[in-house]
């Protein structure tokens, strides 16, 4: 899953009730609001009458989102997809303004920040919905919201991008602190990029600010704005290594560039993003059909074809490595809300920018 940098948001993470250990419900037990196959065909019939679904997403690039939309239309002919793709913050601003003016034009809202959902939930703007194949995703993320007003919409990984021609594969985040990495590192800025913010909070919580970032500063990393600056700099040859997302690196690699990803042994940082159906959706049936589609095989396969991570565990990612098979660290939403401003302030002190 990739997100454009400009307005990429900070506080994004799913935190809510993690039912990783000792889930009270069995995998086959139906949840309230969970969709059945019979429901799906009813939804489809009703959705055809509605004619279209309005989908706002911050998750993908425009091309990737268009591919998903096309695949939905292929599976469910007769329903148009009106797609609006921009960074989460911008979408959120528009949505809140629309709601203030009592304008309801969005059916499915896929933000990059769970914090947005917290706010929208308080405003009672979200509908409860559970896709039929919710159990096909990683257990930890099956219950992002105890009230089911939003679900997992997208996963992204923050890991190490590097140039395999210039460097052997780094294995730990601490490798970036090695003096031999001086002048070789490139990364984004937590104030400008939510993903970078997420990663910074994770490193801070794992190792402590002084132990990690003060030492990192000594290596004179190039600081940009977006989470993709690292990938771009490696591709251009400007720098050689850095913390970055998985998708763009994989895409560039497939394009023939000299870049690779490494899963750090001290945890890949996993970033989750939500998706929801709006309560006052103008096309409620199409909306539910579409959100249900998020958890379909076709959706996951299309994601993989654009180098994003599949939601479903039974679809292999582009790297071939299933997300639940790698060591991941996930920052909870409550921590993120406080953590991002906190680390951004520290960042300003340490890096001067």
């Amino acid at each position, binding site marked *: 899953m990739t997100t454009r*940098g400009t307005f990429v948001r900070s506080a994004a993470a799913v935190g809510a009730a993690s039912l990783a250990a000792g889930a009270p419900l069995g995998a086959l037990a139906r949840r309230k609001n969970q969709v059945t196959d019979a429901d799906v065909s009813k939804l489809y019939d009703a959705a055809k009458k509605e004619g279209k679904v309005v989908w706002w997403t911050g998750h993908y690039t425009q091309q990737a989102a268009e591919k998903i939309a096309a695949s939905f239309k292929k599976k469910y002919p007769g329903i148009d997809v009106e797609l609006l793709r921009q960074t989460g913050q911008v979408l959120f601003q528009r949505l809140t303004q629309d709601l203030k003016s009592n304008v309801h034009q969005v059916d499915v809202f896929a933000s990059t920040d769970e914090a947005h959902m917290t706010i929208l939930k308080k405003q009672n703007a979200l509908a409860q919905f559970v896709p039929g194949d919710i159990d096909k995703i990683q257990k930890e993320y099956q219950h992002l919201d105890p009230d089911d007003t939003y679900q997992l919409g997208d996963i992204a990984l923050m890991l190490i991008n590097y140039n395999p021609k210039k460097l052997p594969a780094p294995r730990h985040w601490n490798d970036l602190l090695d003096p031999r990495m001086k002048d070789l590192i490139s990364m984004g800025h937590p104030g400008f990029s939510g993903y970078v913010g997420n990663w910074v909070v994770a490193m801070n919580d794992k190792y402590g600010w002084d132990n990690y970032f003060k030492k990192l500063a000594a290596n004179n990393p190039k600081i940009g704005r*977006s989470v993709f600056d690292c990938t771009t700099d490696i591709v251009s040859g400007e720098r050689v290594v850095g913390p970055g997302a998985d998708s763009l690196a994989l895409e560039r690699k497939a394009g023939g560039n000299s870049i690779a990803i490494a899963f750090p042994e001290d945890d890949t940082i996993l970033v989750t993003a939500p998706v929801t159906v709006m309560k006052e959706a103008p096309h409620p049936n199409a909306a539910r059909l579409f959100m249900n589609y998020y958890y379909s095989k076709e959706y996951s396969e299309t994601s993989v074809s654009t180098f994003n991570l599949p939601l479903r565990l039974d679809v292999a990612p582009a790297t071939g490595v299933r997300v639940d098979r790698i060591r991941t660290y996930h920052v909870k939403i409550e921590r993120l809300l406080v953590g991002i401003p906190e680390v951004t302030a520290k960042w300003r002190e340490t890096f*001067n920018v």
Partner: protein
Amino acid sequence: MSLAAAPRRVERAGSFDVGPIFFIGAVVVLAILVIVPLAWLGVISLQRVDVGGFTLGNYVDAFTKSIYLRPIINSFVLAASVATIAALLGTPLAWLIARTNLPGRKGLRALITAAFVTPSFIGAEAWILLAAPNSGWINRAIASFTHASHGPLNIFSLGGAIFVMALYNVPYTFTFVAGGLELLPTELEDASSTLGASAWRTMRSVTLPLVMPAIVAGFIMSFLEALAEFGTPAFLLIPARLQVVTTQLYLFFQFPVRTELAAAYAMPLIGVTLGLLLLQRRILGRRKYAVVGGKGGRRRLIDLGPWKWPLLGAALIVPMCSVILPYLALLATSLSHIWSEGPVPGNLTLYWYHWAIFDNAETRRAIFHSLSYGAAAATIATIVGFLIAYTANRRLFPGAGILGIVCMAPFVVPGIVLAIGIYAAYSHPPLVLYGTATILIIAFTTRFLPIAYSNLNTMVAAVNADLENAARTLGATRLRALRTITAPLLRRGLLASWLLVFIPSIRELSSAIFLFTPRTATMTTQIFDFTDAGNYEAVATLAILILAITIVIVSVAYRFLGKDFMETTST
């Protein structure tokens, strides 16, 4: 037929005067564009976050924390350096081109105009391609020559940013000084040389002081532009670890959004700008340097003799750095599959152009938006500017002169601050314009209204009021006289004003960046997005497209309006 006077006529039915409605309309539009956003900015800066209610806390926060104070200092250092260098480069260039027999003067002028229409942040992008420490082409070339590990240039530095911004600010000083020099009759300098002064001394003690107002005007213009610039500092100074006011304002708009803090932070920028403009008036007001009206005197060009060619070489350095090298770099990148491999055979392709124009609906739409928003803004600004200039000039009602000042007010507000004000004013009921094309058009119109107004003001003042009055004595209402007499006489001026708003609108980034959404993206915001995704090829392609469109439009304008329409009037 006798010419005996006709009997008294009955007033025509239905001939009520619509004139006042138009003028009131212009005033209302002015209020929407300028007064409301600025007022909102002031109000918001005093509001408590989320809770409402008044507080000075925002100002306290904004100006006591050192992380917020440092960007202010950085901005001033940046702006002062840029303005100084731009003046130091622009003045001799202007003298060489306007006063001497330097060969290739016409071509040089064209190149400087090309620099004028190039957005500075695109120049910054191009210079990243050229001078990034490890991957920049110039560096790589030098490094392979000298067998060093990397080249000597680092564009990601304060020096780099000053370099790039100064290059694209040179046109201001150049235009003002060249304009001033052209109106200076040679007799003034002849007087000096008949008294025995050398050419150098004449230049120093006669010419230079006489064009000092123009130099000062150019300096201040560059300073203000540099202060308000967002794109170049975002690209070049963040890696250099330097925040400036504009990037800091941008940060205030990331989650969690702190509009109130941003507003408080932005207000002093307005104060500074205002102060500078008043200072300029003070400096220039004391010495009466009326640029000798009209085309003064014969102008004999100074013969450079054997110095012609070396000076031409020196003169070419500036356009080389602002136009030739960057455009080549962008062109090469736009024609490459993968830019880092360089424009080598095997890597060359027209794919990106095809993609931008035919495949990518987003980009096509962005191009269309840039052109249509620019056109809309130019049209509104010209009409409003014209009506207000007329109202103020002819003193239609007491205090009409104040309208002129309101028209100029946006000039003192940096684009990004204006955008914040417009965002604040028009993003909640009753007038929710966020996300619409309207809000972008408002931003562009407001931002560039001062240019249109000051241009038209000069022109309207030059039209003898007698010409309109004659029409009125013959029975025409004021509005009719305006329409049939004044406007046609000012056709050229109106068109020039239109262009002077249209062109900057196309290349505007700093105000658009706050107000656009995907549906209303422009070419500049697209470029910005693409740089974030590291898609340099797309960036370069779009940049070349913007430049091509702008240059075509400007060339057409030159053909119709003559070469001096770009001379913006000094305030």
